[in-house]
């Protein structure tokens, strides 16, 4: 039995077309599109424990509060070894100063002069500081040390109390200092 010549040619063409697509292209859209659906459903408790995200508008900030005075004590005990007295820096980053310096030709980037959101400072301290014992500060301690560093920068008064309501209201000096390049 012989196959019709036409069909052989057609299948050869198909093979060649497929082979022609097999270029050494490592971003070719050959990625699989269906998975076996093996994801487990997290419990509400698991979700709550893992979801520590905080947004600049304050969503996700935990309960608790802290004052500048309380923060000074936390800072002396947990932060000063690395960030120096009153946040002046050394050996780790300076937290204070430089406000107004960014366009001066000698920019000094600190929490006070450069960071656009106070919520970011809270978030970073809560997840990563102090580096020798991250995630050991209580939420009250993080609010307090945030209030203290903001006060050192002259951004909040000495009487300030920071909590989930007051922290997002802080307008950092460099709040409008960034140009969004995410779509460029």
């Amino acid at each position, binding site marked *: 039995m012989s196959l019709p010549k036409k069909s052989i040619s057609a299948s050869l063409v198909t093979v060649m077309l497929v082979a022609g697509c097999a270029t050494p292209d*490592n971003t070719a859209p050959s990625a699989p599109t269906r998975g076996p659906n093996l994801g487990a*459903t997290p419990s509400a408790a698991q979700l709550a424990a893992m979801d520590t995200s905080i947004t600049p508008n304050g969503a996700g900030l935990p309960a608790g509060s802290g004052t500048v005075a309380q923060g000074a004590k936390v800072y002396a005990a947990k932060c000063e070894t690395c960030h120096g007295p009153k946040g002046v820096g050394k050996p*780790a980053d300076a937290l204070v100063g430089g406000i107004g310096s960014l366009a001066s030709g000698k920019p000094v980037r600190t929490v006070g002069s450069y960071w*656009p959101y106070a919520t970011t400072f809270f978030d970073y301290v809560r997840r990563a500081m102090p580096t020798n014992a991250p995630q050991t500060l209580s939420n009250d301690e993080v609010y307090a040390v945030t209030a203290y560093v903001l006060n050192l920068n002259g951004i909040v008064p000495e009487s300030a109390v920071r909590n989930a309501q007051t922290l997002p209201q802080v307008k950092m000096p460099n709040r409008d200092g960034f140009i969004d390049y995410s779509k460029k």
Partner: protein
Amino acid sequence: MSKTKASHDLVAKTEVPPALADNQRRHFLTRSASVAGTLATAGVAAGAATAAAQEVPAWMKAPGTPMRAYGTPSSYEKSVQRPSASGYASVSPATGSSRTPHQSLEGTITPSGLHFERHHNGVPDIDPSKHELLIHGLVNRPLMFNLATLSRYPMVSRTHFVECAGNSGGNSAAKPPQGTAGAIHGLASVSEWTGVPLSLLLNEAGLAGGAQWVIAEGADSAAMVRSVPLSKCMDDAMVALYQNGERVRPEQGYPMRLLLPGWEGNMNVKWLRRLKVADGPAHSKDETSKYTDLQPDGKARQFTFELGVKSIITFPSFGTKLDRRGLYELTGIAWSGAGRISRVEISEDAGKTWRDANLQGPIYSKSFTRFRLPWEWNGNAVVLQSRAIDEKGNVQPTRAAFVSQYVAGMNYHNHYIQSWAIAADGSISNVFA
């Protein structure tokens, strides 16, 4: 930014650390040997016969060592190491980086043990049976995965570079740092990554209305967080489980990392534990206070994700001394976050004239492309440069053009032309040309 941190991120030293210099001296010997042949190490001019060549070598007259469960490089290659630095050595020595020694490597794949490292508080020792990846936020159903379940998903293998946004930042210092190609540009490495397309996992969770960004979090003791546009996550992003065929190394995110081909390394979150789909970015520490590019007018560019087209000559380069006139093979690597490299040009006169180098295939998108060029050195002082062009038409800029956009010393996203000056005596230095 504090001076301490800056000097860490960019190796802004103009002197080579003594240990590194030693390393380079050793490498110089290695490279000389490979160029001139083993006769050179025996102190005999090329072309002459040696007594040793007439004897049967000792390793041919006795059995070799037996098989071993996991191999390592030759004991004669111990000088090929990653130089490392920490900007916080006295208080947080595990915060810092180590760099791929490009000048000692060939081809395009970085050995896993020489892939650059950048840690924000050390390498966690993660037990994979206790590690989970949560996908939640603006999804129809939150999902938890672990290494066992993800390993049963369909996968893809892709050869891509990962490059720290702080790579090459040393060249933004006022004076050119005298370091090797690796010491200056070693925060970039290439691996074959294998993993699960992130789009597949996000589709299983089901994207809800308003989804625009994905917040990725690592399980290290810095709990590193970065925000990624959803469009990238649905494009070529991957949850990588394997690196060069074996499980991802601890330094690279074991048991799983986010891979965002062509985008700044910091976003490729290692030790990935959580992906939260959101309507906006988190504005985390590492996407506001760090990895943002300050302009002279005081405004900073935020979210510079895609890395620019770039190339470096790895031979000849700092750390080697040309010991004779004549023919050499000039070689190096080129890459772009925008896609494939389409052309690399070489200049011997600090950028006045250019000629094409040969590109070695296969040319992968968002990966290193090796370039080569037969090159005759006549003993004159020359300034060698390479200039890469990618398939989108992006051209690697000059240093002057790049740095003029930013404040002095801006040490992120630097991808301008590297210049190596070769003196008449064959010695090589880093210059700004």
